[in-house]
């Protein structure tokens, strides 16, 4: 390999992730407190400095997942950010059901940064890994149930009746025997004085009118009317806008710059160097953009100036010929591959990918007199953000306040362990010397060229089949960058040279094959990489499921039957596989020119099978239909599950048909949607979603439709043309 230095970035001085000891015991969780403004508030304790500014002053503030106002409005404070995945709605359904609320009076607000809102899966506040619903389902039920019992206790005491005779439905407490009733709002103040039940009774499934139903999204009207506030829309009086000119090379530094022309541009307030480049601060976006274009900067590109992805790919392939760090070994794949003449070796390549959320990144910072900062942004990672902000300002985290807005797409980009865009915005505010709140905005070019990509991967696969054509050996070697190298996550996620996030979906290959080996070579480069919707699965779903079909072809066996045979120990895989195959009509004769491909993949504790029907039109694949079966355990909102499957398939199809970030001479070759195209409506397939009625463990949904899609399309093309898809995005097919 070329001498590639360790990943460095302006925020490399990431503070260690602390062990946040959030006691999620019922007692602490359900601590109710006296009210100032006539309401009942339930939740965990948080420091007074970090009260959510999003909760109105009339409300009592120190604790919260739930607030009930004297106006009957039930406010759910959602600790997961809403980035399209529908979590505001599903969490509200859960709370409202246990509470017995009138859903029309339920409002949802995003939680500000606070340890109280830690995600148990990460032990800090963050939204990702498709963890939101299953990690908070019980917690939100308890929060709702305790509030219900306290409202009932307050009513029973007021009416001098037995609490057992009271019900909570549609936002009203009723005592049928005496005919009395009172709304939640009327009882809120009294309820707040009741003691918190240690073990509130959770309702049974039949008592949940909302859970499991396709309740309408709570965020639809505001988003349709253009009223929803995203980070880029946030405003404060006197706010200024900043743009940053960043190094064209990863890891590059400013050598010198001439800001005279930029400073002379109308509306410009400051032109200053920051660790990531040169910032221009102006009254308006367009002024800042014009001024940035007028900057003259000499960059020291460093080793990043030599990067070339085609060359890196060649090096990856060479490395893949050597044994790597072992992620899994069953039997002796090397020996079986050496002796079995019915074998196949091949490789699959996937490129660096930008997340490209429709809303470019932005972050508004107002520095405070006490040395801290008030920040408004759209982030998936408020926990690490708070620590990184404190570190950047050399203050304790309690001097940092972060409010989250709606996120105009996340897909992982807004969850950087070093809080890259937030820390940069702090540096801009600090360096500018200005007192005003400053919102740093990224242009689309900044976003596409800004790194934090899904890593490029080279997959070398070798396999063998027995005399009957059944798969008996499997070896998968991955070569690429670790997304967690150089971050605090490295300690837990990289073990013995294996990045666990990179082998998810390959080391966990579910097939009952006697000889399985999964190995990896981790390489380093200055290119910043990050989780991208479905993380390692985005590569492994493609590599494993496409290779499976290549081996079936070698063995002359049906890919559906071979999967069934090798999944006999995995009932949930089998169930979705059989459901998707049946719904798609697997095995029926196809019209000429149509190829059909099938896949099954587990990720984020959910199970998904897909069947894609693909045609070739002028050498380009045209995906006509995708049939998808999903088992994610008990479902809160089937329409949101459906939407995530539809969206996940289209997101994945963008990468199959178009997505690719390449570098030449250390420069990213793409810059905007004309050369980093996303799927458009005329390429979007017809999608059929079938949800398994499941009582198994609850899994995630936001990412799970992505991993199987590439191989479903590739397998359809393999069936149609006899040729495998060796790299993504799919090139023109002759």
């Amino acid at each position, binding site marked *: 390999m070329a001498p590639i230095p360790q990943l460095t970035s302006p925020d490399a001085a990431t503070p260690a992730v602390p062990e946040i000891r959030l006691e999620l015991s019922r007692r602490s969780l359900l601590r109710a407190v006296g009210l100032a403004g006539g309401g009942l508030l339930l939740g965990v304790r948080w420091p007074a400095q970090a009260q959510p500014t999003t909760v109105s002053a009339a409300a009592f503030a120190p604790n919260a997942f739930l607030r009930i106002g004297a106006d009957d409005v039930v406010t759910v404070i959602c600790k997961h950010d809403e980035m399209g995945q529908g979590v505001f709605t599903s969490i509200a359904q859960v709370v409202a059901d246990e509470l017995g609320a009138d859903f029309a009076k339920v409002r949802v607000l995003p939680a500000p940064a606070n340890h109280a809102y830690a995600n148990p899966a990460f032990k800090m506040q963050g939204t990702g890994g498709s963890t939101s619903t299953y990690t908070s389902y019980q917690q939100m039920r308890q929060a709702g149930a305790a509030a219900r019992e306290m409202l009932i206790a307050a009513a029973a005491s007021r009416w001098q009746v037995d609490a057992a005779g009271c019900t909570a439905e549609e936002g009203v407490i009723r005592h049928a025997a005496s005919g009395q009733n009172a709304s939640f709002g009327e009882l809120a103040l009294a309820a707040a004085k009741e003691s918190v039940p240690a073990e509130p009774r959770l309702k049974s499934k039949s008592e949940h009118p909302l859970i499991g139903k396709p309740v309408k999204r709570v965020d639809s009207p505001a988003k349709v009317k*253009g009223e929803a506030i995203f980070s*880029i829309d946030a405003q404060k009086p006197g706010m200024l*806008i900043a743009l940053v000119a960043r190094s064209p090379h990863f890891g590059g530094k400013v050598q010198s710059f001439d800001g005279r022309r930029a400073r002379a541009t109308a509306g410009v307030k400051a032109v200053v160097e920051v660790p990531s480049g040169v910032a221009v601060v102006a009254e308006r976006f367009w002024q800042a953009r014009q001024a940035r274009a007028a900057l003259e900067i000499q960059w020291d590109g460093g080793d990043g100036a030599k990067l070339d992805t085609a060359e890196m790919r060649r090096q990856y392939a060479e490395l893949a010929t050597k044994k790597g760090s072992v992620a899994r070994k069953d039997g002796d794949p090397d020996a079986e591959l050496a002796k079995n003449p019915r074998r196949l070796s091949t490789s699959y390549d996937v490129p660096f990918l930008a997340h490209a959320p429709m809303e470019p990144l932005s972050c508004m910072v107002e520095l405070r007199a006490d040395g801290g900062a008030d920040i408004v942004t759209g982030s998936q990672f408020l926990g690490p953000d708070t620590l990184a902000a404190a570190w950047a300002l050399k203050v304790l985290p309690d001097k940092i306040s972060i409010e989250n807005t709606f996120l*105009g797409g996340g897909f992982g980009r807004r969850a950087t362990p070093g809080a890259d865009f937030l820390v940069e915005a702090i540096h801009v505010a600090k360096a500018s010397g200005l007192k005003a709140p400053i919102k740093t905005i990224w242009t689309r070019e900044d976003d596409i060229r800004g790194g934090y990509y899904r890593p490029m991967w080279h997959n070398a696969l070798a396999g063998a089949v027995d005399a009957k054509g059944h798969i008996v050996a499997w070896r998968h070697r991955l070569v690429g960058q670790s997304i967690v190298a150089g971050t605090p996550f490295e300690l837990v996620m990289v073990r013995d040279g294996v990045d666990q996030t990179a082998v998810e979906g390959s080391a966990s290959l579910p097939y009952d094959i006697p000889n399985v080996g999964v190995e990896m070579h981790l390489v380093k480069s200055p290119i910043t990489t990050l989780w991208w919707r479905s993380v390692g699965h985005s590569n492994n779903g493609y590599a494993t499921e496409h290779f499976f079909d290549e081996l079936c072809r070698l063995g002359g066996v049906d890919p559906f039957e071979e999967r069934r045979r090798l999944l006999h120990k995995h009932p949930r895989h089998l169930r979705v596989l059989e459901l998707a195959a049946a719904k798609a009509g697997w095995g029926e004769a196809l019209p000429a020119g149509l190829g059909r491909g099938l896949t099954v993949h587990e990720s984020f504790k959910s199970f998904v099978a897909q069947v894609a029907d693909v045609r070739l039109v002028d050498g380009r694949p045209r995906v006509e239909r995708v049939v998808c079966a999903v088992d994610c355990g008990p479902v809160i909102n089937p329409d949101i599950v459906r939407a995530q499957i539809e969206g996940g398939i289209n997101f994945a199809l963008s990468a199959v048909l178009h997505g690719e970030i390449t570098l030449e001479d250390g420069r990213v070759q793409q810059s905007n949607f004309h050369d980093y195209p996303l799927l458009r409506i005329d390429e979007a397939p017809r999608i059929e979603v079938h949800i398994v009625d499941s009582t198994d463990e609850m899994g995630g949904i936001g990412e799970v439709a992505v991993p199987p899609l590439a191989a479903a399309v590739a397998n359809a093309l393999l069936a149609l043309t006899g040729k495998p898809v060796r790299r993504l995005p799919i090139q023109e097919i002759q």
Partner: protein
Amino acid sequence: MSLKLTVNGEAREVDADPGTPLLWVLREDLGLTGTKFGCGRAACGACTVHLDGQAIRSCAYPVRQAAGRQVTTIEGLAESKVGQAVEQAWIELDVVQCGYCQPGQCMAAAYLLGQQPNPDDQDIDIAMRGNLCRCGTYSRIRAAIHRAAEILRG
């Protein structure tokens, strides 16, 4: 430079560099943040507004060319019957996910329905292919346009 334009039926006057894209005048000078910045080169449709009834990409449209003309943004969409039908259909079908592109989608859909009251899937694909949705809500966008057409037929 002072420029006059009519936005959502209201006469407005702004002081801006005439080369500034209309998008930023709407967002920053007039506080109408429903119109979104996605690409800055008319490649994604998030900034779609109507200018004298025609759908345009405001991120690449100098404000001087909008002077003296009628601009309708997402905030004013519900003033028209077509706009109401589009919003109603979008909400009924829960089209949105992250929602960032949806004001632009709604503006493009309303323009299409104004031109072609009963579009088929192909008409929709042609009219809407300039509007990107990273969340991939395309099948619902198609369905919602059909639904809006149905609402308008009464």
